[in-house]
């Protein structure tokens, strides 16, 4: 176990190293930070002086060595745009993103398992077909569009006048399809509760939760269909396996077969995929946070890109790399718990 964790730690360091080299190598293509810091009429000589002060004129190796030396001491440079240490900036934006990812994960878990299992057990039921059809549509709609549609329906509100208002059923249908809006469409709201450090939470107040609803649904909208289909496919496969057939033949109640014997084995691959996907979800937050002006890491990263804020871009990429390594490690640990036949080190015992 200890050996495994140490090995993963080395992985994390290696990942951070490679990402930092890559990020530094492409920084010239990220744009000119000086251009973003000065007004249009600032003469070239002033720009050159600023470039010199920021050390942007030094050769690649010198710049990288300076960065690496500071980085091993925990200093990832100062963000140009936020005028603060990059790690500090990321730390301030991290809780918002983690809460968003947490809420989405909750939605995904709560919905994907029952729906996936149901449509595996009753593949021919109309509801199952509906879920499968809807999940195809869900996968194909980009998160950006989902977000805009959610805002239109639940924040701005839609008034449907498609049906004749004079008839009873028409006005009933118009009313049914119209919405009033009122859901917050942007930001985290002003009713946050401070937990500790940089962590202000949305989860403690009604207003905070309301702000969380639409962004987390939008973020969940990509992964939820994926998981429903994954769980369904795995479950159907498990249902065909010999031990399930045997259990059924023995006369064990179907409930027990489904939820104890089959589901447990279904979840093995789901955990693996799920862990990796949660890492990916951190990446998807860029889109969701942009649309909802959710002040998390995704929005911060986009701002950093727009301002060619190289220290922040490099730090963000490295941190995201670490998040991937950490989630993978947790997945492996959980996997070992669920399936005792798997050895953590991955070597034959």
């Amino acid at each position, binding site marked *: 176990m200890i050996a495994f964790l140490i090995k993963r730690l080395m992985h994390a360091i290696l990942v951070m190293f490679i990402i930092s080299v890559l990020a530094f190598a492409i920084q010239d293509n*990220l*744009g*000119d*930070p000086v251009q973003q*810091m*000065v*007004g*249009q*009429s*600032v*003469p*070239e*000589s*002033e720009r050159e*002086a600023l470039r010199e002060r920021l050390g942007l004129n030094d050769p690649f190796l010198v710049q990288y060595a300076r960065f690496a030396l500071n980085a091993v001491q925990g200093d990832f440079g*100062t963000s*140009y*745009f*936020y*005028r*603060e240490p990059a790690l500090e900036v990321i730390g*301030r934006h991290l809780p918002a993103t983690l809460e968003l990812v947490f809420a989405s994960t909750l939605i995904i878990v709560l*919905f994907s398992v029952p729906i996936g299992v149901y449509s595996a057990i009753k593949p021919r039921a109309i509801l199952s077909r509906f879920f499968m059809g809807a999940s195809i549509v869900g996968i194909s709609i980009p998160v950006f569009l989902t977000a*805009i549609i959610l*805002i*239109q329906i*639940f*924040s*701005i*509100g839609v008034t449907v006048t498609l049906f004749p208002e004079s008839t009873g059923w028409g*006005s*009933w249908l*118009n*009313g*049914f399809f119209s*919405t*009033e*809006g*009122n*859901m*917050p*469409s*942007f*930001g985290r709201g*002003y009713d946050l509760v401070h937990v500790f450090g940089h962590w202000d939470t949305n989860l403690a107040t009604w*207003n905070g939760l*309301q702000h969380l*609803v639409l962004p987390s*649904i939008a973020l969940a909208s990509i992964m939820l269909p994926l998981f429903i289909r994954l769980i369904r496919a795995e479950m159907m496969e498990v249902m065909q396996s010999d031990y399930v057939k045997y259990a059924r033949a023995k006369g064990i109640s179907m409930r027990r077969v489904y939820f104890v014997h089959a589901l447990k084995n279904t979840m093995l691959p789901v955990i693996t995929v799920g862990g990796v996907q949660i890492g990916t979800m951190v990446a998807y937050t860029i889109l969701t946070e*942009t649309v*909802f*002006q959710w*002040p998390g890491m995704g*929005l911060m990263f*986009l*701002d950093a*890109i*727009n*301002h*060619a804020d190289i220290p922040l871009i490099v730090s963000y990429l490295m941190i995201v790399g670490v998040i991937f390594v950490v989630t993978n490690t947790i997945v492996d640990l959980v996997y070992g718990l669920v399936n005792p036949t798997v050895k953590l080190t991955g070597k034959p015992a």
Partner: protein
Amino acid sequence: MPFRRTISFKKTMLASVIGATLAGTALLPMAASAETLRVGYAADPETLDIHEQLSGGMLRFSHLSFDPLVRWTKNFEFEPRLATEWEQVDETTMRMSLREGVTFHSGNPLTAEDVVWTIERLKESPDYRAIFEPVESAEAIDDHTIEIKTSEPYPLLLNLATYIFPMDRAFYTGETDDGDDKSEIVKAGNSYASRHVSGTGPFIVTERRQGVRVDFERFDDYWDTDTGNVDRIVLTPIAENASRVAALLSGGVDFIDAVPPNDLERVREADDVNLVEINGTRIIGFQLNEERVEAFQDPRVRQAVAYAINQEGIADRLMRGFATPAAQFSPEGYSGHNPDLTPRYDVERAQELMAEAGYADGFTIDMIAPNNRYVNDAQIAQAVSNMLARINIDVNLRTMPLAQYWPEYDTRQSDAAMIGWHADTEDSANFFQYLTFCIDEQTGAGQYNYGSYCNEEIDALVTAADSETDLEKRNAMLREAEAMLYEDAGYIPLHWQNLAYAAREDVDIEPVVNAIDFPYLGDLVISE
């Protein structure tokens, strides 16, 4: 009414399909009392140090927490603010009287020393230094009188005065606990002035999180008591166009800027929301690179390009009327605006000119344009490419995001480039000096002259105008310069991009927004 009750009951049913019963529940209007204004701007101020960066966001902020000596009215006239009177003492000296009884947020009174100190700080600022180059010195005559001296006769001193937002000298003097000078200007650094602010303006900054929100509260001792009624401002930057519009339509904010052309109709037709459109002053156009394409050195070819482009078509259809077609730099209201110059779209004439110049068969060029800087910039560039194809100029168009565009622009390695320009001085001469003056690395002239266009006659005329203090004469000279540039087609103008603001119906934004794009929110009135 029982009728309405049925409807809201059904609404809850739809909401529950999605799994959220929240939609029907009214959100508690967050501090939406009549005096709080929730603003959704595309960007927030980059810093609190008003001299650290010259940008639209910073100047808007300056008008909230500071006051200029004079400011622009909607019609490009000067309105006294902290300066109440001014007179030209001799050719190079202007004397200004300052308003009495003005205090800073810190409680210090405003005196002439503060203004002098501010002007000296402006001359230290990398962003303002070039603009304040003509100012030689400033001197306090008594507590409420200053004299500003220029090295040469300079007609635009009042234009510069719109940039002088007196800062609290006592507040910004001394050392911080870390031993840094409180007055120092550090770009993208953590200076005292970038974190602390004391101005004379209508609003005090109470809280600020970069990129997330800025909170303002009304300054109780503000000198101008006969003004707006906004007590608090919560400014949230919402960069995404669709989200900003949605935030207004859903009642999340009360006032937004930069309504995108595609949403104008929607906002105009929305209930309880007012849209205000203003003719802007930013010219959008193209520069042709004469260094790389020999043909562009021939005025006839440049004219052909100007004739081939349908400015009115672009403004009407692509911009949906959200632009004023242009045939010169200066928008209406500017000193050098020449009403005789109109767009000259005529494809046949363009083809003739190409033939006369010996390029009937045309040629191929590369063109670059940004894709997130100006309204519809990439689409405009695409439209222009198609128009040029009709005079046999084949365009390879590359568009890129802003952060990559300017470095690419600076290399001048393409044959044509798009640029938009807003004159920092709100004056016609500025366009020429930056965009079409013969390049001179020493003086910085022609810093954005992508095509290395050079017409010494025009340069001489504009330079002469810039030391002509008789404004009538000066305007005539600038109008003449516009006509010469039009004839020579040294810049291919397309249009002036409009500005659009929108606000909740009871927020009366029309009187406080202007073509310079700095809403004077101190004067904003929200009807009860």
